[in-house]
């Protein structure tokens, strides 16, 4: 069965600092991978997705993520965070067309950006 692990439950960074949120997945084939963000009292919104090709994918608000098949990872990065980036970030996996976009989520990472 597939799974997603986000090893950091909570990350605190200073405004302007760089950020990496970690995501490891377990799946026998190459999955479809996603990062979603959840702002307070809102639903999840898509940040970026990886299907195939270039392992570095760009998303909204200057976020990017790098897929590594050898490490089974899909880490989220941002060069300079803003206080408005404070939110909960979820990494998710889909098995592709055979899974009809049924997503498996990690437990989420709470990001706090301090002034």
């Amino acid at each position, binding site marked *: 069965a597939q799974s997603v692990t986000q090893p950091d439950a909570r990350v605190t960074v200073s405004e302007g600092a760089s950020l990496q949120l970690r995501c490891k997945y377990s799946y026998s084939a190459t999955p479809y991978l996603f990062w979603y963000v959840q702002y307070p009292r809102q*639903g999840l919104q898509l940040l970026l*997705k990886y299907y195939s090709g270039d392992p570095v994918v760009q998303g909204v608000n200057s976020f990017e993520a790098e897929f590594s098949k050898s490490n089974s990872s899909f880490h989220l990065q941002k060069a300079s965070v803003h206080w408005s980036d404070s939110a909960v970030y979820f990494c998710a996996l889909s098995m592709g067309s055979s899974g009809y976009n049924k997503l498996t989520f990690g437990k989420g990472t709470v990001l706090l950006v301090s002034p």
Partner: protein
Amino acid sequence: EAAVTQSPRNKVAVTGGKVTLSCNQTNNHNNMYWYRQDTGHGLRLIHYSYGAGSTEKGDIPDGYKASRPSQENFSLILELATPSQTSVYFCASGDNRGNERLFFGHGTKLSVL
């Protein structure tokens, strides 16, 4: 942008009572999903549907039923609510034309006392 609307936004129920959570999407997506979100667990899939009239069990279906009477509407039903079902519930929709993205509603906060 796809729109997914959930109602109610907040619900307080009594143990043993029946609760119905409703979801409506206006983008003609085939697939709809119900997730619950709990601290330490992330989002877990309860039920999903590939179209009107169909429902499938997700990863944690026990204690829940689902109903998809039309393309637009997908309900989650708790026939006998229990305190362990206190959670935030999210509905989502997506198409199955190679776009794996899901669109989420704002969530329903359910408290079972």
